[in-house]
């Protein structure tokens, strides 16, 4: 055992102390503890505002009688009913993929994790200190659609399934695993901009595309993400939007039929995942311009700043965008319970024409499920969350889009319930066939133009025309990771000229010497001042 292992085991045991107490608490009966590690606010937590609650409200059940439990509690009940065994979910959350990765590196053990695409790849490719892999593959039987309780494989969108089977077109080196061996999808979406149409003209935005980040007309009114992944991605968009073989050029050639979908996806995926030194050198000045032009780097304040009007544009994940749109259009109420006029705000969502990021979050099992005997419960958890009614509950609660389409396209009814228009005009048809794996133009809902082009429906269930110009993020390999981190620290921090650093260091040393002089001056003969003439020391 090496020193790192000991150190990390010590740290891990400090963090794990609470869970020992829990294990001891239920020694009376055989209870499986399933440790789930998910994003913050990424699951139905019941209560007011949850799907069941709002459904009951719609059916005019008196508020006091509404029961809307947490979905995790429902899972525990369902598991016991289905398998006759008790399971207890120990649920904890993380804020970023990197935080989660650090927890694992420290030696913490969970059964189920919910990382994003690039982190799934990283975990699948890396091993722990002792050489054992991080992740466990799903059972073959998990993917057998004939088993009644295999809700995941029975209900997952064929489109998503295909993305998982092909690593969404990433150019991964031979021998690297496919996502679908290790991961079952949970949520997915795009990255784009939430904007306030009162200040930002949709046409200007379309003309700008990624260049909006460096457009002086929105100086101080736009935000970027405070993580290198998303902001570097955006900067790549800004840098390579124009020019020959740039994003716009590729887009044009694709729409003219010169490129196939596969060639086009490959080409933009390559651009959006470039981390070589030349690219970084090209991107860096643009990143600096972005920093100059934006109001803030943020991870969670963007939604609030958007709603209260501090900013006009917020670079956001589609689920957060839906949340912000919902929040902004909900009116405030006065003391009589009447909506205050003008308190609601209509925000829109926009995806750059030249292409953007398509991302997935998926459930992966840690290798330790084998030893802990929790593999069955872990797979059951994924299946339970994939049952269409449960997928709707989660999706409704958090605003993100579930990967579940439903055996009989159950999700379509849900989308229709949320965003469907009253009339069925042909020009109002919103095509979602790709997601449900049907022929073009056969499956969709009728909705008004705003929903179709720039509001919640567009953000939550992007049309195929958005999806086809998206690229998935690959993970940064070792040396690339270091280059990107250095770049990020140069962007985030101010760098002084060498002479300025030297001058300041000299000043600091001078101050330090001065203090030393004051402190010890009296005690050292050399510094002692001689008494003035005419005085005698007493």
């Amino acid at each position, binding site marked *: 055992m090496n020193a790192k292992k000991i150190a990390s085991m010590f740290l891990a045991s400090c963090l794990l102390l609470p869970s020992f107490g829990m294990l001891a608490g239920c020694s009376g009966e055989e209870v499986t503890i399933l440790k789930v590690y998910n994003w913050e606010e990424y699951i139905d937590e019941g209560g007011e505002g949850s799907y069941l609650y709002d459904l009951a409200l719609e059916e005019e059940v008196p508020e006091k009688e509404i029961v809307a439990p947490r979905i995790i509690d429902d899972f525990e009940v369902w598991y016991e009913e289905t398998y006759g065994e008790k399971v207890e979910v120990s649920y904890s959350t993380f804020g970023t993929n*990197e935080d989660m990765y650090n927890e694992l590196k420290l030696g913490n053990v969970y059964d189920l994790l919910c990382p994003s695409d690039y982190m799934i790849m990283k975990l699948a490719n890396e091993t722990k200190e002792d050489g054992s892999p991080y992740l466990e593959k799903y059972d073959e039987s998990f993917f057998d659609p004939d088993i009644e309780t295999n809700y995941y494989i029975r209900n997952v969108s064929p489109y998503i399934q295909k993305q998982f089977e092909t690593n969404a077109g990433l150019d991964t080196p031979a021998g690297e695993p496919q996502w679908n061996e290790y991961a079952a999808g949970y949520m997915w979406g795009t990255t784009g901009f939430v904007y306030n149409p009162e200040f930002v003209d949709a046409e200007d935005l379309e003309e700008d595309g990624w260049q909006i980040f460096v457009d002086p007309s929105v100086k101080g009114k736009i935000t970027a993400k405070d993580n290198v992944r998303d902001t570097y991605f955006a900067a790549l968009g800004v840098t390579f939007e124009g020019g020959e073989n740039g994003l716009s050029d590729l887009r044009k050639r694709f729409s003219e039929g010169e490129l196939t979908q596969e060639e086009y996806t490959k080409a933009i995926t390559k651009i959006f995942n470039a981390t070589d030194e030349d690219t970084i050198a090209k991107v860096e000045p643009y990143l600096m311009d972005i920093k100059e032009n934006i109001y803030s*780097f943020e991870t969670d304040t963007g939604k609030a700043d958007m709603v209260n009007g501090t900013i006009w544009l917020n670079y956001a994940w589609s689920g957060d965008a839906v949340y912000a749109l919902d929040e902004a259009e909900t009116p405030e109420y006065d003391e009589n319970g009447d909506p205050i006029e003008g308190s609601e705000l209509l925000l829109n969502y926009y995806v750059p024409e030249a292409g953007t990021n398509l991302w997935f979050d998926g459930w992966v099992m840690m290798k330790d499920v084998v030893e802990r005997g929790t593999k069955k419960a872990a797979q059951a958890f994924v299946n339970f969350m994939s049952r269409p009614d449960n997928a709707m509950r989660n999706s409704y609660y958090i605003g993100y889009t579930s990967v579940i389409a439903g055996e009989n396209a159950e999700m379509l009814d849900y989308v229709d319930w949320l965003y469907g228009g009253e009339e069925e005009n042909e020009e109002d048809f919103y095509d979602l066939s790709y997601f449900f794996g049907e022929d073009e133009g056969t499956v969709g809902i009728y909705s008004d133009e705003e929903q179709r082009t720039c509001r919640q429906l567009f953000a939550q269930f992007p049309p195929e025309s958005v999806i086809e110009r998206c690229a998935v993020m690959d993970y940064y390999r070792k040396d690339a990771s270091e280059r990107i981190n250095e770049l990020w620290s140069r962007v985030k921090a101010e760098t002084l*000229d060498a002479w300025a650093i030297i001058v300041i260091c000299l000043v600091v040393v001078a101050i330090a010497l001065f203090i030393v002089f004051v402190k010890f001056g009296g005690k050292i003969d050399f510094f002692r001042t001689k008494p003035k003439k005419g005085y005698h020391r007493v």
Partner: protein
Amino acid sequence: MKVPRFSRKTLCIPYGVFLLFFVLVPMLVILFYAFTDDKMHFSFENFAKFFSDPTKLSTIVYSLVIALVTTVVALLIAYPVAYILARSNIKKKYVVLMLFVLPMWINFVLRVNAIRELFNLISQADGLDWLSNANYFKTIFGMVYDFLPFMILPLYTTMMKIDNSLYEASADLGGNGFTTFARVTLPLSVPGIMSGVTMVFLPSMTNYVVSDMLGNAKVTIIGKFIYTYFGNDWHMGSMIALVLLIVVFLSTWLTGGFKADETVRGTNL
């Protein structure tokens, strides 16, 4: 049966254990990580990288400057307050003092968030829109606001202890207000200044919650840097933490924070 000996030293055991596991061991872990590479081999690579990277050195300098300005501003505000409070004859002094300390009872993230919203509101007014991009100003404002009580309290307690007869003696010898201040109050309140400065200067070098929320994450101080590096490169993160530790140690030593002599005791919170 032998009765187990119970001495006063036994009472130190809980704290000793705490000290060992949550102060000493983590520091050793940081030291270990700072001087190893990914393969856990001893290496000076991070050390060399740190001191040859102008960005990292600049960040240290920026943090020092931000902390310095914060401390000076806090001192300028706190000193008169503490002086007036200590010298006045207000009957319920502690009520006024409490008003200054009261904000500390509310969670500080909450307070910083409130200031953020306040700034957002103010900057919507005409002619004040420069505020929305005045990130350094807002960061320092937030830090001063946050750490002001830590400056007032030690100053107040030190000044309370100054014997009134000293002021009388100064007046008897013909010293005017200024002379009394310069020759009596100021020298005798130096221990209070020192502990106040220590308590404001050090945390404001690392308090990145303020710089993230009020500086819109466009102000990067060394604390944030450590946090970011720990996201993917623990070795460099540890090295930065170690350098910071040394800077902190030196400044504490220079300002006399380790002295346990009579005048300082009780003024350190």
